[in-house]
Protein backbone atom coordinates (compact mmCIF):
# COMPACT_ATOMS: atom_id res chain seq x y z
CA UNK A 1 0.00 0.00 0.00
CA UNK A 2 1.22 3.48 -0.86
CA UNK A 3 2.11 5.59 2.14
CA UNK A 4 -0.30 8.30 3.26
CA UNK A 5 0.73 11.90 2.92
CA UNK A 6 0.29 13.40 6.37
CA UNK A 7 0.49 17.07 7.35
CA UNK A 8 0.45 18.46 10.88
CA UNK A 9 0.09 22.16 11.38
CA UNK A 10 -0.09 24.62 14.24
CA UNK A 11 -1.76 27.98 13.89
CA UNK A 12 -2.64 30.07 16.99
CA UNK A 13 -1.82 27.41 19.57
CA UNK A 14 0.45 26.68 22.49
CA UNK A 15 2.21 23.67 21.03
CA UNK A 16 0.51 21.23 23.38
CA UNK A 17 -1.35 19.48 20.56
CA UNK A 18 1.94 18.78 18.82
CA UNK A 19 3.40 17.48 22.05
CA UNK A 20 0.36 15.21 22.39
CA UNK A 21 1.22 13.75 18.98
CA UNK A 22 4.75 13.06 20.21
CA UNK A 23 3.20 11.47 23.30
CA UNK A 24 1.96 8.55 21.24
CA UNK A 25 5.56 7.49 22.02
CA UNK A 26 6.77 4.42 20.16
CA UNK A 27 3.59 4.41 18.06
CA UNK A 28 5.08 7.42 16.27
CA UNK A 29 7.20 4.79 14.48
CA UNK A 30 4.04 3.00 13.40
CA UNK A 31 2.72 6.32 12.11
CA UNK A 32 5.97 6.86 10.24
CA UNK A 33 5.59 3.37 8.76
CA UNK A 34 2.23 4.19 7.20
CA UNK A 35 2.69 7.89 6.52
CA UNK A 36 4.98 10.32 4.77
CA UNK A 37 5.03 13.49 6.78
CA UNK A 38 4.93 16.40 4.33
CA UNK A 39 4.61 19.25 6.80
CA UNK A 40 5.14 19.41 10.56
CA UNK A 41 6.62 22.75 11.62
CA UNK A 42 7.24 21.78 15.23
CA UNK A 43 9.44 18.82 14.34
CA UNK A 44 10.57 18.96 10.71
CA UNK A 45 11.95 21.54 8.35
CA UNK A 46 9.56 21.64 5.40
CA UNK A 47 8.89 25.00 3.79
CA UNK A 48 5.48 26.40 2.92
CA UNK A 49 6.70 26.70 -0.67
CA UNK A 50 7.16 22.91 -0.85
CA UNK A 51 3.56 22.36 0.16
CA UNK A 52 2.35 25.08 -2.22
CA UNK A 53 3.84 23.08 -5.11
CA UNK A 54 1.86 19.95 -4.24
CA UNK A 55 -1.22 19.09 -6.31
CA UNK A 56 -4.67 19.82 -4.83
CA UNK A 57 -5.88 16.87 -2.78
CA UNK A 58 -2.46 15.26 -2.59
CA UNK A 59 -2.32 15.32 1.23
CA UNK A 60 -4.39 12.44 2.58
CA UNK A 61 -4.74 13.68 6.13
CA UNK A 62 -4.06 17.04 7.73
CA UNK A 63 -4.28 17.42 11.49
CA UNK A 64 -4.66 21.15 11.99
CA UNK A 65 -4.28 22.51 15.49
CA UNK A 66 -4.64 26.11 16.59
CA UNK A 67 -7.09 28.91 15.98
CA UNK A 68 -6.98 31.53 13.22
CA UNK A 69 -5.67 34.74 14.73
CA UNK A 70 -3.67 36.32 11.91
CA UNK A 71 -3.31 36.40 8.14
CA UNK A 72 -0.60 33.72 8.10
CA UNK A 73 -2.86 31.31 9.99
CA UNK A 74 -5.60 32.02 7.48
CA UNK A 75 -3.41 31.67 4.42
CA UNK A 76 -1.98 28.31 5.52
CA UNK A 77 -5.44 27.06 6.50
CA UNK A 78 -6.67 27.83 2.98
CA UNK A 79 -3.65 26.20 1.40
CA UNK A 80 -3.93 23.05 3.52
CA UNK A 81 -7.65 22.84 2.82
CA UNK A 82 -6.97 22.85 -0.89
CA UNK A 83 -4.21 20.26 -0.65
CA UNK A 84 -5.92 17.89 1.79
CA UNK A 85 -8.46 15.14 1.27
CA UNK A 86 -9.28 15.03 4.95
CA UNK A 87 -8.86 18.15 7.06
CA UNK A 88 -9.22 17.59 10.78
CA UNK A 89 -9.77 20.40 13.28
CA UNK A 90 -7.49 19.02 15.93
CA UNK A 91 -7.88 20.22 19.50
CA UNK A 92 -9.96 22.91 21.17
CA UNK A 93 -8.31 25.93 19.50
CA UNK A 94 -8.98 24.71 15.96
CA UNK A 95 -12.49 23.57 16.90
CA UNK A 96 -13.74 26.52 18.89
CA UNK A 97 -10.95 29.05 19.42
CA UNK A 98 -9.52 27.58 22.62
CA UNK A 99 -7.51 29.68 25.03
CA UNK A 100 -6.42 32.20 22.34
CA UNK A 101 -10.06 33.07 21.72
CA UNK A 102 -10.46 34.40 25.26
CA UNK A 103 -8.94 37.47 23.60
CA UNK A 104 -12.29 37.96 21.86
CA UNK A 105 -13.42 39.61 25.08
CA UNK A 106 -11.15 42.46 23.93
CA UNK A 107 -10.57 43.97 20.50
CA UNK A 108 -7.39 44.39 18.51
CA UNK A 109 -6.72 47.93 19.72
CA UNK A 110 -7.14 46.95 23.39
CA UNK A 111 -4.73 44.06 22.95
CA UNK A 112 -2.03 45.94 21.05
CA UNK A 113 -2.21 48.86 23.45
CA UNK A 114 -1.93 46.60 26.48
CA UNK A 115 0.87 44.45 25.14
CA UNK A 116 3.02 47.05 23.38
CA UNK A 117 2.37 50.18 25.42
CA UNK A 118 0.96 49.55 28.89
CA UNK A 119 2.54 46.44 30.37
CA UNK A 120 4.94 47.45 33.19
CA UNK A 121 7.87 45.62 31.62
CA UNK A 122 7.51 47.36 28.25
CA UNK A 123 9.86 50.14 27.20
CA UNK A 124 8.49 51.66 24.01
CA UNK A 125 8.92 55.46 24.18
CA UNK A 126 8.03 55.92 20.50
CA UNK A 127 4.84 53.91 20.89
CA UNK A 128 5.73 51.58 18.02
CA UNK A 129 3.04 49.03 17.21
CA UNK A 130 3.47 45.96 14.98
CA UNK A 131 3.25 46.77 11.29
CA UNK A 132 2.55 44.38 8.42
CA UNK A 133 5.39 45.82 6.36
CA UNK A 134 8.59 47.68 7.02
CA UNK A 135 11.23 48.86 4.52
CA UNK A 136 14.86 48.11 5.43
CA UNK A 137 18.12 48.61 3.52
CA UNK A 138 18.11 44.92 2.60
CA UNK A 139 14.53 44.89 1.37
CA UNK A 140 10.99 44.98 2.72
CA UNK A 141 10.13 42.89 5.76
CA UNK A 142 6.66 41.46 6.20
CA UNK A 143 4.71 40.33 9.22
CA UNK A 144 1.28 38.70 9.21
CA UNK A 145 -1.68 40.94 9.97
CA UNK A 146 -3.08 40.58 13.47
CA UNK A 147 -6.85 40.13 13.19
CA UNK A 148 -9.51 41.72 15.35
CA UNK A 149 -11.04 38.31 16.12
CA UNK A 150 -9.85 34.79 16.85
CA UNK A 151 -11.64 32.35 14.54
CA UNK A 152 -12.20 28.65 14.77
CA UNK A 153 -10.84 26.72 11.78
CA UNK A 154 -14.32 26.04 10.38
CA UNK A 155 -15.15 29.73 10.45
CA UNK A 156 -12.45 30.08 7.79
CA UNK A 157 -12.44 26.85 5.75
CA UNK A 158 -14.56 23.72 5.55
CA UNK A 159 -13.56 21.08 8.07
CA UNK A 160 -14.12 17.33 7.68
CA UNK A 161 -13.70 16.05 11.23
CA UNK A 162 -13.30 17.35 14.74
CA UNK A 163 -11.01 15.83 17.36
CA UNK A 164 -11.62 17.65 20.66
CA UNK A 165 -9.37 18.12 23.64
CA UNK A 166 -6.80 20.53 25.04
CA UNK A 167 -4.95 18.56 23.89
CA UNK A 168 -6.60 15.42 22.49
CA UNK A 169 -5.35 12.32 24.28
CA UNK A 170 -2.60 10.36 22.48
CA UNK A 171 -4.86 7.30 22.38
CA UNK A 172 -7.43 9.26 20.30
CA UNK A 173 -4.78 10.53 17.92
CA UNK A 174 -3.71 7.03 17.17
CA UNK A 175 -7.31 6.00 16.55
CA UNK A 176 -7.80 8.83 14.05
CA UNK A 177 -4.70 7.91 12.06
CA UNK A 178 -5.82 4.27 12.03
CA UNK A 179 -9.32 5.23 10.86
CA UNK A 180 -7.88 7.11 7.89
CA UNK A 181 -5.42 4.32 7.07
CA UNK A 182 -8.19 1.72 7.08
CA UNK A 183 -10.63 4.01 5.26
CA UNK A 184 -13.00 3.41 8.12
CA UNK A 185 -14.23 6.98 8.46
CA UNK A 186 -17.43 8.21 10.13
CA UNK A 187 -19.80 10.59 8.28
CA UNK A 188 -18.23 13.95 7.40
CA UNK A 189 -18.54 16.60 10.05
CA UNK A 190 -18.42 14.08 12.90
CA UNK A 191 -16.62 14.59 16.17
CA UNK A 192 -14.10 11.78 16.46
CA UNK A 193 -12.39 10.54 19.57
CA UNK A 194 -15.03 11.62 22.08
CA UNK A 195 -18.25 10.30 23.57
CA UNK A 196 -21.80 11.50 23.04
CA UNK A 197 -22.39 11.37 26.79
CA UNK A 198 -21.36 13.89 29.41
CA UNK A 199 -18.14 13.66 31.36
CA UNK A 200 -20.21 13.14 34.54
CA UNK A 201 -21.52 9.99 32.93
CA UNK A 202 -18.04 8.60 32.68
CA UNK A 203 -16.91 10.02 36.06
CA UNK A 204 -16.61 7.50 38.89
CA UNK A 205 -17.00 9.95 41.77
CA UNK A 206 -19.90 9.63 44.18
CA UNK A 207 -22.76 11.94 43.21
CA UNK A 208 -25.37 13.04 45.69
CA UNK A 209 -27.70 16.00 45.96
CA UNK A 210 -26.01 19.13 44.67
CA UNK A 211 -26.61 22.17 46.90
CA UNK A 212 -23.82 24.66 47.02
CA UNK A 213 -23.22 27.24 49.72
CA UNK A 214 -19.81 28.37 48.56
CA UNK A 215 -17.64 28.04 45.47
CA UNK A 216 -13.90 27.56 45.81
CA UNK A 217 -10.99 28.04 43.48
CA UNK A 218 -8.87 24.93 43.37
CA UNK A 219 -6.10 26.33 45.58
CA UNK A 220 -8.58 27.21 48.33
CA UNK A 221 -9.73 23.72 49.23
CA UNK A 222 -8.43 20.23 49.88
CA UNK A 223 -11.03 18.04 48.27
CA UNK A 224 -12.40 14.65 49.19
CA UNK A 225 -11.00 12.27 46.54
CA UNK A 226 -14.16 10.18 46.30
CA UNK A 227 -16.84 12.83 46.08
CA UNK A 228 -18.09 14.81 43.07
CA UNK A 229 -15.99 17.98 42.85
CA UNK A 230 -18.92 20.18 41.93
CA UNK A 231 -20.72 19.11 45.10
CA UNK A 232 -17.64 20.24 47.00
CA UNK A 233 -17.90 23.68 45.43
CA UNK A 234 -15.39 23.45 42.61
CA UNK A 235 -16.61 24.70 39.23
CA UNK A 236 -16.43 21.36 37.45
CA UNK A 237 -17.79 21.60 33.90
CA UNK A 238 -18.48 17.86 33.67
CA UNK A 239 -22.26 18.23 33.37
CA UNK A 240 -22.07 20.17 30.09
CA UNK A 241 -18.89 18.69 28.62
CA UNK A 242 -18.45 15.74 26.27
CA UNK A 243 -16.86 12.72 27.83
CA UNK A 244 -14.02 10.85 26.20
CA UNK A 245 -10.90 12.12 27.90
CA UNK A 246 -11.07 9.43 30.59
CA UNK A 247 -11.76 12.06 33.30
CA UNK A 248 -8.09 13.03 33.28
CA UNK A 249 -8.41 16.18 35.34
CA UNK A 250 -10.86 14.67 37.81
CA UNK A 251 -8.41 11.81 38.42
CA UNK A 252 -5.85 14.44 39.35
CA UNK A 253 -8.33 16.11 41.73
CA UNK A 254 -8.85 19.03 39.38
CA UNK A 255 -12.28 20.08 38.16
CA UNK A 256 -13.04 19.71 34.44
CA UNK A 257 -12.45 22.95 32.54
CA UNK A 258 -14.57 21.79 29.62
CA UNK A 259 -11.92 21.20 26.95
CA UNK A 260 -13.82 18.42 25.15
CA UNK A 261 -16.43 21.01 24.25
CA UNK A 262 -20.20 21.10 24.60
CA UNK A 263 -22.24 17.93 24.81
CA UNK A 264 -24.14 17.14 21.60
CA UNK A 265 -27.38 19.12 21.76
CA UNK A 266 -25.86 21.91 23.83
CA UNK A 267 -25.66 25.08 21.72
CA UNK A 268 -23.59 27.12 24.10
CA UNK A 269 -21.46 25.46 26.73
CA UNK A 270 -21.09 28.54 28.93
CA UNK A 271 -24.75 29.50 28.96
CA UNK A 272 -25.74 25.93 29.70
CA UNK A 273 -23.28 25.71 32.54
CA UNK A 274 -24.51 29.00 33.93
CA UNK A 275 -27.98 27.52 33.89
CA UNK A 276 -26.96 24.47 35.91
CA UNK A 277 -24.79 26.40 38.35
CA UNK A 278 -27.63 28.83 39.02
CA UNK A 279 -29.96 26.00 39.84
CA UNK A 280 -27.69 24.31 42.38
CA UNK A 281 -26.81 27.39 44.45
CA UNK A 282 -28.31 26.94 47.87
CA UNK A 283 -29.93 30.38 48.09
CA UNK A 284 -33.39 31.92 48.31
CA UNK A 285 -32.72 35.64 48.22
CA UNK A 286 -30.68 37.94 45.96
CA UNK A 287 -28.40 38.65 48.94
CA UNK A 288 -27.62 34.96 49.44
CA UNK A 289 -27.00 34.59 45.70
CA UNK A 290 -24.64 37.54 45.84
CA UNK A 291 -22.63 35.95 48.57
CA UNK A 292 -22.29 32.62 46.80
CA UNK A 293 -21.33 34.40 43.57
CA UNK A 294 -18.30 35.90 45.29
CA UNK A 295 -16.66 32.53 44.67
CA UNK A 296 -17.02 32.88 40.88
CA UNK A 297 -14.53 35.52 39.84
CA UNK A 298 -14.54 35.26 36.07
CA UNK A 299 -17.62 33.48 34.72
CA UNK A 300 -17.03 34.33 31.03
CA UNK A 301 -13.39 33.25 31.13
CA UNK A 302 -14.14 30.14 33.15
CA UNK A 303 -17.23 28.89 31.35
CA UNK A 304 -15.95 29.66 27.84
CA UNK A 305 -12.35 28.79 28.47
CA UNK A 306 -12.11 26.76 25.27
CA UNK A 307 -15.04 27.88 23.16
CA UNK A 308 -15.36 31.64 22.80
CA UNK A 309 -15.11 31.75 18.98
CA UNK A 310 -18.09 29.50 18.44
CA UNK A 311 -20.18 30.65 21.41
CA UNK A 312 -23.44 32.49 20.75
CA UNK A 313 -22.07 35.91 21.68
CA UNK A 314 -18.58 35.25 20.19
CA UNK A 315 -16.92 37.91 22.30
CA UNK A 316 -17.39 41.43 23.56
CA UNK A 317 -18.25 44.52 21.58
CA UNK A 318 -17.91 48.06 22.81
CA UNK A 319 -21.46 49.43 22.82
Amino acid at each position, binding site marked *: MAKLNLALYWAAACGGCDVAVLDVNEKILDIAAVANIVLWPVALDHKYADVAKMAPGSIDLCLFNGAIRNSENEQIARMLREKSQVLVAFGSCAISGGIPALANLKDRDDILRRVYLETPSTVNPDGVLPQTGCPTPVGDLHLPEFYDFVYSLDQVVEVDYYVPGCPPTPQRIWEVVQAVVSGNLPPRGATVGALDKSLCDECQRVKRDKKIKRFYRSHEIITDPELCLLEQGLLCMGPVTRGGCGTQCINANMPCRGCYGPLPGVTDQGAKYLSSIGAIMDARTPEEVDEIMQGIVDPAGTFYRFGMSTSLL*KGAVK*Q
Partner: protein
Amino acid sequence: MVDFEPKIIGFLCNWCSYAGADLAGVSRLQYPANLRVVRVMCSGRVDPTFVFKALSQGADGVLIAGCHPGDCHYTEGNYNTLKRYPLMMQMLEQFGVERERVRMEWISAAEGTIYADVVREFTETIRQLGPYKRRLVKGRDQVG
Protein backbone atom coordinates in the same frame (compact mmCIF):
# COMPACT_ATOMS: atom_id res chain seq x y z
CA MET B 1 -31.06 57.67 17.69
CA VAL B 2 -34.41 59.09 16.54
CA ASP B 3 -35.19 56.37 14.04
CA PHE B 4 -34.28 53.47 16.25
CA GLU B 5 -37.14 51.11 17.12
CA PRO B 6 -35.82 48.66 19.72
CA LYS B 7 -36.49 44.97 19.26
CA ILE B 8 -37.13 43.40 22.64
CA ILE B 9 -37.81 39.75 23.34
CA GLY B 10 -39.95 39.04 26.39
CA PHE B 11 -40.04 35.58 27.94
CA LEU B 12 -43.24 35.51 30.00
CA CYS B 13 -44.31 32.65 32.19
CA ASN B 14 -47.64 31.14 31.31
CA TRP B 15 -49.22 31.32 34.76
CA CYS B 16 -48.50 34.86 35.92
CA SER B 17 -46.75 37.29 33.60
CA TYR B 18 -48.37 36.13 30.39
CA ALA B 19 -51.75 36.41 32.10
CA GLY B 20 -50.66 39.85 33.31
CA ALA B 21 -49.89 40.84 29.73
CA ASP B 22 -53.25 39.50 28.71
CA LEU B 23 -54.93 41.60 31.36
CA ALA B 24 -53.09 44.68 30.11
CA GLY B 25 -54.56 43.96 26.69
CA VAL B 26 -58.09 43.26 27.92
CA SER B 27 -57.93 46.45 29.97
CA ARG B 28 -56.97 48.33 26.77
CA LEU B 29 -53.82 49.75 28.35
CA GLN B 30 -51.55 51.54 25.91
CA TYR B 31 -47.92 50.45 25.69
CA PRO B 32 -45.29 50.24 22.94
CA ALA B 33 -45.32 47.33 20.51
CA ASN B 34 -41.55 46.79 20.70
CA LEU B 35 -41.72 43.76 22.93
CA ARG B 36 -42.17 40.40 21.16
CA VAL B 37 -43.59 37.91 23.60
CA VAL B 38 -42.44 34.32 23.89
CA ARG B 39 -44.65 32.36 26.25
CA VAL B 40 -42.83 29.82 28.38
CA MET B 41 -44.35 27.55 30.99
CA CYS B 42 -42.23 28.99 33.79
CA SER B 43 -39.56 31.67 34.09
CA GLY B 44 -37.32 28.86 35.36
CA ARG B 45 -37.47 27.40 31.85
CA VAL B 46 -35.56 30.40 30.50
CA ASP B 47 -32.15 28.91 29.99
CA PRO B 48 -29.53 31.70 29.65
CA THR B 49 -28.98 30.18 26.19
CA PHE B 50 -32.34 31.72 25.16
CA VAL B 51 -31.19 35.16 26.25
CA PHE B 52 -27.83 34.86 24.50
CA LYS B 53 -29.48 33.54 21.37
CA ALA B 54 -31.94 36.43 21.31
CA LEU B 55 -29.09 38.93 21.60
CA SER B 56 -26.99 37.11 19.01
CA GLN B 57 -29.87 37.17 16.52
CA GLY B 58 -30.78 40.81 16.64
CA ALA B 59 -32.61 41.58 19.90
CA ASP B 60 -31.64 44.85 21.56
CA GLY B 61 -33.08 43.87 24.92
CA VAL B 62 -34.51 40.86 26.74
CA LEU B 63 -37.16 40.71 29.45
CA ILE B 64 -37.64 37.67 31.65
CA ALA B 65 -40.86 37.84 33.64
CA GLY B 66 -42.39 35.35 36.04
CA CYS B 67 -44.55 34.93 39.12
CA HIS B 68 -43.49 36.63 42.35
CA PRO B 69 -41.14 34.51 44.50
CA GLY B 70 -43.29 32.08 46.44
CA ASP B 71 -46.04 32.14 43.78
CA CYS B 72 -44.45 30.03 41.02
CA HIS B 73 -46.88 27.45 39.65
CA TYR B 74 -44.08 24.93 39.95
CA THR B 75 -43.06 26.16 43.42
CA GLU B 76 -39.30 26.48 42.81
CA GLY B 77 -38.99 27.55 39.16
CA ASN B 78 -38.63 31.25 39.70
CA TYR B 79 -36.06 30.73 42.46
CA ASN B 80 -33.87 29.28 39.73
CA THR B 81 -34.53 32.41 37.69
CA LEU B 82 -33.65 34.55 40.66
CA LYS B 83 -30.39 32.66 41.19
CA ARG B 84 -29.29 32.57 37.54
CA TYR B 85 -30.02 36.18 36.75
CA PRO B 86 -27.23 37.91 38.73
CA LEU B 87 -24.62 35.42 37.50
CA MET B 88 -25.86 35.85 33.95
CA MET B 89 -25.61 39.63 34.29
CA GLN B 90 -22.08 39.40 35.64
CA MET B 91 -21.15 37.29 32.65
CA LEU B 92 -22.97 39.50 30.15
CA GLU B 93 -21.10 42.52 31.46
CA GLN B 94 -17.85 40.75 30.57
CA PHE B 95 -19.25 40.40 27.05
CA GLY B 96 -19.84 44.15 26.97
CA VAL B 97 -23.61 43.90 27.36
CA GLU B 98 -24.96 46.71 29.55
CA ARG B 99 -26.90 45.61 32.61
CA GLU B 100 -29.96 47.58 31.51
CA ARG B 101 -30.42 45.44 28.40
CA VAL B 102 -31.57 42.34 30.20
CA ARG B 103 -34.25 42.75 32.80
CA MET B 104 -35.95 40.42 35.25
CA GLU B 105 -39.40 41.27 36.65
CA TRP B 106 -42.01 39.58 38.79
CA ILE B 107 -45.47 40.31 37.35
CA SER B 108 -48.59 38.54 38.59
CA ALA B 109 -51.75 37.78 36.63
CA ALA B 110 -53.44 40.73 38.35
CA GLU B 111 -50.71 43.22 37.49
CA GLY B 112 -51.70 44.33 33.98
CA THR B 113 -50.82 47.93 34.79
CA ILE B 114 -47.39 46.97 36.06
CA TYR B 115 -46.80 44.94 32.91
CA ALA B 116 -47.68 47.93 30.72
CA ASP B 117 -45.44 50.19 32.82
CA VAL B 118 -42.52 47.78 32.61
CA VAL B 119 -42.81 47.49 28.83
CA ARG B 120 -43.07 51.25 28.44
CA GLU B 121 -40.12 51.95 30.69
CA PHE B 122 -37.96 49.15 29.33
CA THR B 123 -38.58 50.20 25.71
CA GLU B 124 -37.53 53.72 26.62
CA THR B 125 -34.37 52.46 28.35
CA ILE B 126 -33.36 50.43 25.30
CA ARG B 127 -34.17 53.32 23.01
CA GLN B 128 -31.74 55.44 25.01
CA LEU B 129 -29.07 52.73 24.95
CA GLY B 130 -29.31 52.29 21.21
CA PRO B 131 -29.04 49.07 19.18
CA TYR B 132 -27.11 46.15 20.61
CA LYS B 133 -23.91 45.72 18.61
CA ARG B 134 -23.14 42.07 18.08
CA ARG B 135 -19.78 40.46 17.45
CA LEU B 136 -20.37 39.01 14.02
CA VAL B 137 -18.55 36.29 12.15
CA LYS B 138 -19.52 37.20 8.61
CA GLY B 139 -18.48 34.34 6.40
CA ARG B 140 -15.51 32.28 5.31
CA ASP B 141 -14.71 34.77 2.57
CA GLN B 142 -14.73 37.72 4.96
CA VAL B 143 -12.15 36.79 7.55
CA GLY B 144 -9.90 39.51 8.85
